[in-house]
């Protein structure tokens, strides 16, 4: 029998008793070991959370497997994090070590707390999105195959580092505020299928969808034409009109952005900024992307001070040094030319040679 609008399951029925009891009374936390959080309550109660990496895209079997574990050690309670890790919630300290052992034995990867590289927030990619320029899941797998020691705590980093992948400039993962973000981009303007367009697309809507005014009516074909000099390859027109196509397997690729953050700690949230305008789309291992990300992490980790996130490190050393230290070329692509471009131009002689 169908019911409507009854809403999601009520969290109050899904939180373990220790949380029910200590809700809003937690006093402090420590991180006894990578991936394990210990929360202590004003009542003296203690909660351990053991965090494991998840591929996010999971099967029913996965769900049942982690449920089995939660049944064994956590009285059947578990949660996911806002970055798609899974957390086992242990209130009985005696079950902590057995849980960890079991997880390790079953091949789960524990980590991601404190100063570390946590799971990669990402999007659908070729798996499910029609806009995807690249495959997010594949890139995540490749990058984290390289960087997992930073997740497990095997290799230390100066501060937390958040990586995100978006398969197109819609940036569903909120890449725009990540320490490192990997974004699929187009490099050629869309093509119009005149025959398909006529009747199928509303021309005024299509023209209005273009933020740069690059689309104009083509009286000859009764379709539209695109002024290539004005087109910034945003793909917005392709969303409103299916007769306009922008996918280009030869030229589409991946860009890399750095220095964004979300938290208000120390510095205000800030946008990620362009580091590498283009790398080839090279499945299944995307070696250029993987190497670039690894390189960025390594340069940062070697040079940043304790507690300094990517963007804070760049603020301290300056973008001049960032490009120098990473060996990345600074190009015309790095110079903003969108709406607020002039606010990014350096209006002071304060710079480093």
């Amino acid at each position, binding site marked *: 029998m169908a019911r409507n609008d009854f809403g*999601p399951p009520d969290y109050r029925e899904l939180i373990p008793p220790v949380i029910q009891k200590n809700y809003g009374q937690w006093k402090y936390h420590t991180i006894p070991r990578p991936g394990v959080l210990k929360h202590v309550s004003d009542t003296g109660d203690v909660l351990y959370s053991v965090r494991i990496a998840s591929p996010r895209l999971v099967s029913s079997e996965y769900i049942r497997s982690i449920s089995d574990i939660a049944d064994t050690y956590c009285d059947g309670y578990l949660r996911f994090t806002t970055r798609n890790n899974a957390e086992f919630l242990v209130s009985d300290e005696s079950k902590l070590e057995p849980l960890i052992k079991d997880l390790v034995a079953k091949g789960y990867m524990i980590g991601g707390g404190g100063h570390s590289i946590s799971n990669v927030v990402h999007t659908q990619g070729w798996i499910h999105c029609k806009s995807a320029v690249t495959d997010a899941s594949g890139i995540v797998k490749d990058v984290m195959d390289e960087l997992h020691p930073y997740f497990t705590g095997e290799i230390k980093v100066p501060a937390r580092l958040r990586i995100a992948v978006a398969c197109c400039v819609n940036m569903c993962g909120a890449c725009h505020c990540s320490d490192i973000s990997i974004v699929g981009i187009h490099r050629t303007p869309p093509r119009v299928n005149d025959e398909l367009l006529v009747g199928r697309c509303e021309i005024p809507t299509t023209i209005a969808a273009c933020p740069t005014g690059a689309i104009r009516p083509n009286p000859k074909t009764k379709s539209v034409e695109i002024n290539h000099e004005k087109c910034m390859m945003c793909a917005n027109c392709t969303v409103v009109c299916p007769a306009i196509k922008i996918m280009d397997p030869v030229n589409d690729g991946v860009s890399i952005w750095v220095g964004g953050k979300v938290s208000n700690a120390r510095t205000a949230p800030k946008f990620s900024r362009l580091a590498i305008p283009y790398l080839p789309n090279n499945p299944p291992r995307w070696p250029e992307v993987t190497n670039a990300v690894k390189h960025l992490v390594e340069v940062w980790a070697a040079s940043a001070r304790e507690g300094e996130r990517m963007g804070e490190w760049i603020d301290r050393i300056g973008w001049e040094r960032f490009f120098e230290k990473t060996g990345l070329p600074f190009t015309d692509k790095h110079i903003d030319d969108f709406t607020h471009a002039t606010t990014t131009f350096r209006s002071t002689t304060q710079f480093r040679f």
Partner: protein
Amino acid sequence: MDELKTPLLDELEKGEWPSFVKEIKRAAAKNPGARDLLRQLEASYREKIGHWKHGGIVGVKGYGGGVVGRYSDDPERFPHAKEFHTIRVNQPAGFFYTTKKLRDMADVWDKYGSGLYNMHGSTGDIILLGTTTENLQPCVDELADVGFDLGGSGGALRTPSCCVGQARCATACIDSMEITREITMHYQNELHRPAWPYKFKIKVSACPNDCAAASARSDLAVIGVWRDALLIDQAAVREYVNNGFNIFDRVIRKCPTAAIDWDSQKQELELRTEDCVHCMHCINAMPKALRIGKERGASLLIGGKAPVVKGAMIGWVLVPFMKMEPPFNEFKDLVDKITDWWAEHGKNRERVGELIDRIGLSVFLKEIGLPPLPQMVHAPRSNPYIFWYPEEVEKHGEK
């Protein structure tokens, strides 16, 4: 079934990080949809291009959204991925589950869908990845039977989501999970029946660490704050210092407003409350010694969103402080005013932040009845192009 050849994807079963390919294969062993998904994905990897078609609206009874229609562009090659719709299932606040709930859901999904999930989607939903048009309705019906309702899509409120907050955090200034639950329930209609120019997202983080990334990815971000002095346990601070914690490098020098100092003589942490901008850093650095203040509420930020198409925005301070007590009527009233104004003035596919950008923040404030405050800006205007309303000036003396 014929042999499954996916040499490119097989590469991604190697390596240490958990493999999504393994997961798809686990599902593919039982489900032809998952199997053709894998085959189509292999093709994408080979050809470097996606294989989903543009458009195609599908739905279920009583709902205007919650389902994203998806069709293969090569149904001949990938017949079982011909229809591969996703169902956005509204997650419980804080992403807490009992294993019972998860198993119930998995049973339904194995019956009607690919057996593949995103735990979770970027907005917060459980994404059930891939089913046919035919299976949609029964699937949604049976999900309802086990207590799962749909999330949002289209020009509607999107599934609100939040950080874990008071369920586990010492720094939670508001009850992020309860707020999320309450507004999700209150706005079921707005969530399920698109009636707005575009999407509208609400996310709740219980403190300025913003673990839900609310300010970056919600049109209305609710972020817990306190407005009195943070609490200092001086003995515990001394313990940090005595244990070799470099309080100057790790804390004092990093306070954005130089609001705290360590008096090495007195062995005391000094706080200039009026300068503290509750950035969280010192508390984060010394969780055993420092705690949030007692007068707690939320800051509301408006306009956060991704780049399409006017450029990305990080939410702007709209209300510096609002008490957040159930049933959150003040908050709901404000949401109503904002969405009414936006629904009236917004163009198709124009986010509320873009509309404010177009119309002006001052006008927006005036229309929803909020006072202009210095907390709303980094700095006042620098250009001299001030607008005056006719009622603010005398009728000019013609000359």
